[in-house]
């Protein structure tokens, strides 16, 4: 779950008390369920650096923040363990939001944990024996 930065967070304004107080039991409940695997809050982009490669094959350019808030900056991320999309969505929808602070965005992304090559080992093996048998069919 990626929580996007806002103009407020970029300006270093502390989160409202209501929001902070609501966030504590929310995270606790995730931790209690054993689904919260990681949680990091980030400082505003003013302390960040950005590396860009403006030209193809060219040298990197290092740029100091702050960066424009409309560029999908991130202020916090949590890694949660959900077995299905709707489960993840339900958890994310229960996350408290700072009501007084305008537009607010949370993005859900999947961890790239699937190893394509190791899916369905059983089927792969039977496909391999099919190739062996077809080869025999051809030659015998």
């Amino acid at each position, binding site marked *: 779950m990626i929580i996007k930065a806002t103009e407020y967070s970029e300006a270093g304004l502390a989160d409202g008390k209501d929001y902070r107080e609501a966030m504590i039991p929310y995270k606790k409940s995730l*931790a209690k369920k*054993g689904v919260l*695997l990681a949680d990091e809050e980030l400082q505003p982009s003013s302390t960040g650096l950005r590396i860009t490669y403006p030209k193809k094959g060219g040298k990197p350019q290092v740029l100091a923040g702050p960066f424009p808030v409309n560029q999908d900056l991130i202020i916090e991320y949590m*890694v949660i*363990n959900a077995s299905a999309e709707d489960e993840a969505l339900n958890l994310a929808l229960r996350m408290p939001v700072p009501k007084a602070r305008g537009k607010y965005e949370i993005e859900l992304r999947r961890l790239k*944990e*699937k*190893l394509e*090559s*190791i899916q369905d*080992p*059983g*089927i*792969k*093996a*039977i*496909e*391999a*024996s*099919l*190739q*062996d*048998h*077809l*080869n*025999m*069919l*051809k*030659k*015998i």
Partner: protein
Amino acid sequence: MSLSNTHRTIDAIWRIESAKLIAGLTRIVQDVGLAEDLAHDALVIALEKWPHAGIPDNPGAWLMTTAKRRAIDLLRRTKIRDQKYVEIAKNTDLYTVEDVDQVLDGEIGDDLLRLIFMTCHPVLSQEARVALTLRLLCGLTAEEISRSFLVAESTIAQRIVRAKRTLNEKNIPFEVPLGEELNDRLSTVLEVIYLMFNEGYSATSGEHWIRPLLCQEALRLGRVLAQIASNEPEVHGLVALMEIQFSRFKTRVNSKGEPVLLMDQNRAQWDQLLIRRGLAALERSRKLGRSLGPYSLQAAISACHTQAPTPEETDWPRIAALYEALSIVMPSPIVELNRAVAISMAFGPDIGIQIVNELNADPSLKKYHLLPSVRGDLLVKLGRYDEARTEFKLAASLTQNEREQTLLLNRAMECGEGTST
């Protein structure tokens, strides 16, 4: 013994003993992550002491005693007053190096079994199960695992850390499941082992074409499992399947590293010891007197090839019957296609193609490229080249794999020649 020699020996000992250590320690501290740390502590002490004092007669027991003392120290230090721990601590205190061996003989098997059920627990993703099993039961490093799967080392390390945390947070017990649950959970364990084996056996990319380490570890794990869960036919079936497949390991590639299909392999080079072990395991599975499951059936099919002196002497009617049985316990179009080919070999392609035609009527298989591909092969066998060409072209349009596409288009072209001559 030189220092580097000693270290190499310690490495080898670690490979063999680490799983037992971690399993035994998990029982005491009820936390795999902590157990692994304690086992590593013992290894560090061994690395300090053994080069001077010499390697003890029973290094496994030495490591276990050392690690257990540390576990007890830790439990005392952290003042865990839980009665359970106090009891264990009391009992464990009595162990001397000599006792450990005796006491553990019966326990080790049980602990290993508990550990593998833990690392293959369904709360973990399949990838996490494989990574954690390789780490804790096979003693592979994150680097070795990452090399086998062509994934960044940090990814594997993260995955292992997360998996251990999940087990902890969800309070996954260190135990062998009972009754109904045992069957489900056992199949998960077998799946992880077979996945490891296949990854080593059938990987086709670059220098990793062959990854014998994974195969060997899977086989070793399977053999251990077969000893401690000896009443489960599918455990023996899986071991049989892996032994027999592994017997062809060397002949599966030529000197250029290209794959060699079964028909063209040099049967004289198949490993006879592995074959004997495989056939014996298959026999054990059958003697348990329950109908054969998917692994045992696949092992039996593989055994048919092993027992044929030449490809021409293969017992196809038996293979067809085994695929028929497999299609019942593991219904899948790929099994049906295999059955169709086996039937063609046993009774002629005109009968085999009927099965493929039945599959053709299934709309859910419209996009399945192997279906027209097999149909094409059978049509060639029947001399119906025009139809075969259409099938190969259809198959080529359905696959994303470029190499396969080229092969199929070549087959289509060969059919073109067939009609013109």
